């Protein structure tokens, strides 16, 4: 069922469109920066953007910082909201269940497909923006000396290419986990309604609510448990030495979201009457 689910997802035009748009936004920003050379001053604008102009290799980090707050969650909401509700409204859910595909197996397959979607989304953004960054801004000052283009960390220390690959890979994994947590919530919402749109909007409502509450001092007690709280913790991965505390805490909270949301989705779906 998992393979079938992946094949179904990869043949949806909507999924490819999401990936395409996710890669298009950083590309647009790169083009604008490259033509104007007007980078935002350090401390203003998106993270890393000020450093990008002098070294294109840092652009993947800047691109991820661009898509994470809004754009990426929207695509995750669309894809995750569609998982069960989409099959339900198309009527294919009943035929899958009488095929038979066990309800738990179906949910697991759906969660795996969402995981693959978010992982590929983050990976595509990273790879495309690396290529775009290098083309637009070059390898940085050291490239001409054959130094492989060392990259400055946020702390000013130069990072070796192997180090950058490690930090970027960790970032991709961390962000994929954050988005998977959101996807698991989408899967839960998708079992509660027969409308993919309603499920997707529910996910977005959660993101907006969380982002609205997060800066309030009054919300300090629940702040660490908000879904959006740790979305930018990965920036610490580009400091030297790496500050692991926030990333570790973020990963635990996000994993908690995956487990709780998936458990609730299963509890609801396993005894649900399928009447569509």
């Amino acid at each position, binding site marked *: *069922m998992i*393979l*079938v689910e992946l*094949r*179904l997802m990869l*043949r*949806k*035009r909507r999924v490819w469109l999401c990936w395409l748009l996710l890669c298009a936004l950083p590309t647009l920003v790169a083009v604008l920066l490259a033509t104007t050379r007007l980078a935002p001053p350090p401390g203003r604008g998106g993270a890393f953007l000020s450093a990008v102009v002098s070294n294109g290799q840092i652009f993947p980090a800047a691109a991820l910082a661009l898509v994470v707050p809004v754009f990426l969650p929207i695509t995750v909401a669309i894809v995750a909201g569609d998982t069960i509700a989409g099959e339900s409204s*198309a*009527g*294919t859910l*009943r*035929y*899958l*269940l*009488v*095929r*038979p*595909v*066990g309800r738990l197996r179906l949910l697991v397959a759906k969660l795996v497909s969402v995981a693959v979607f978010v992982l590929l989304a983050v990976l595509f953004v990273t790879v495309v923006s690396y290529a775009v960054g290098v083309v637009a801004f070059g390898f940085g000052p050291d490239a001409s000396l054959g130094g492989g283009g060392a990259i400055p960390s946020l702390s000013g220390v130069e990072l070796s290419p192997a180090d950058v690959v490690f930090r970027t890979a960790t970032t991709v994994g961390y962000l994929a986990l954050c988005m998977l947590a959101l996807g698991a919530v989408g899967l839960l919402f998708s079992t509660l309604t027969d409308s993919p749109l309603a499920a997707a909007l529910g996910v977005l409502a959660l993101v907006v609510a969380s982002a609205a509450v997060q800066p309030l001092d009054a919300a300090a007690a629940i702040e660490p448990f908000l879904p959006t709280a740790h979305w930018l913790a990965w920036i610490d991965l580009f400091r030297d030495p790496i500050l692991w505390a926030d990333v570790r805490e973020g990963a635990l909270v996000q994993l908690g979201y995956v487990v709780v949301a998936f458990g609730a989705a299963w509890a609801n779906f396993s*005894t649900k*009457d*399928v*009447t569509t």
Partner: protein
Amino acid sequence: MILATRDLTKRFGRVVAVSGVSLEVPRGVRFGLLGPNGSGKTTLVRMLLGLVHATSGHIEVLGEPMPKRAATVLPRVGALVEGPAAWGHLSGRANLRLLDAAGRGRAGRRRADRVDEALDRVGLGGVDRRPVRAYSLGMRQRLGIAAAILREPELLLLDEPTNGLDPRGIQEMRALLTDLNAAGTTVVLSSHLLTEVEALCTDVGVMDRGRLALTSSLDALRAPTGRILVRTPDPAGVVGVLDGQVLGRAGELVTVRGTDPVAVNAQLVARGVPVSGLVLEQRSLEQVVLEITGAGSDRVDRARSEGPR
């Protein structure tokens, strides 16, 4: 029994969709489930398949309790529930292959062959790569039936199998289902089209407002009424010969009391009355169903006290 329920009840909130249904369908028959819209046919079928969970009661399909043993029962059951459904962005062939691959069991080369064979059987063998989204209603219906027969099930549960098909398509489906039945498949279909059930089924059950109002073999239902219909260019002559037995007369058609058309014919011909048609009247399925069922739930009448003021 290939299918048995005991005191099966399903409530959706305050609405009782199915109420105390005890149904038994023997292996090998062609069973027609009849009833007006909203009488609970579809809910019953969904419960048999484990899609909807019963509020109370007991279900056995292929001798095993459902939905507890769904994993072993359902692979041996083919179903069409409330119209066909498919992934619109894929071709019919891709749809069947993916649906087949979604479950456990046989795979590989035989899957492609099985899919092609099922498509051939429903008359879609030459279908091209266009997506199901572009299919006509009839093509979708055929695809749905192909999906139901894909794994050579022992039991076929079909909800309104001839929806959207033209008269030729309906005839083809009837022939297909009769063939499958002759090869050992038990066919259970639900329909509100009486002629469809009358033409295909050996046994019928009639549902009304959630209850199973009747189960019977079709032959027993269509018992003679004890009347003979005589068609003649000389109705007055018939009345003259069979005076006392004549129950009614309408144009060339005379209704006569009796159970032996041969004797009536001999009597009339011997007295020189021309007879152009003679038939033993049987109850039609339509009469039976209309007698025992009320209006469907899609008709909403004004309550009597609530007249115009």
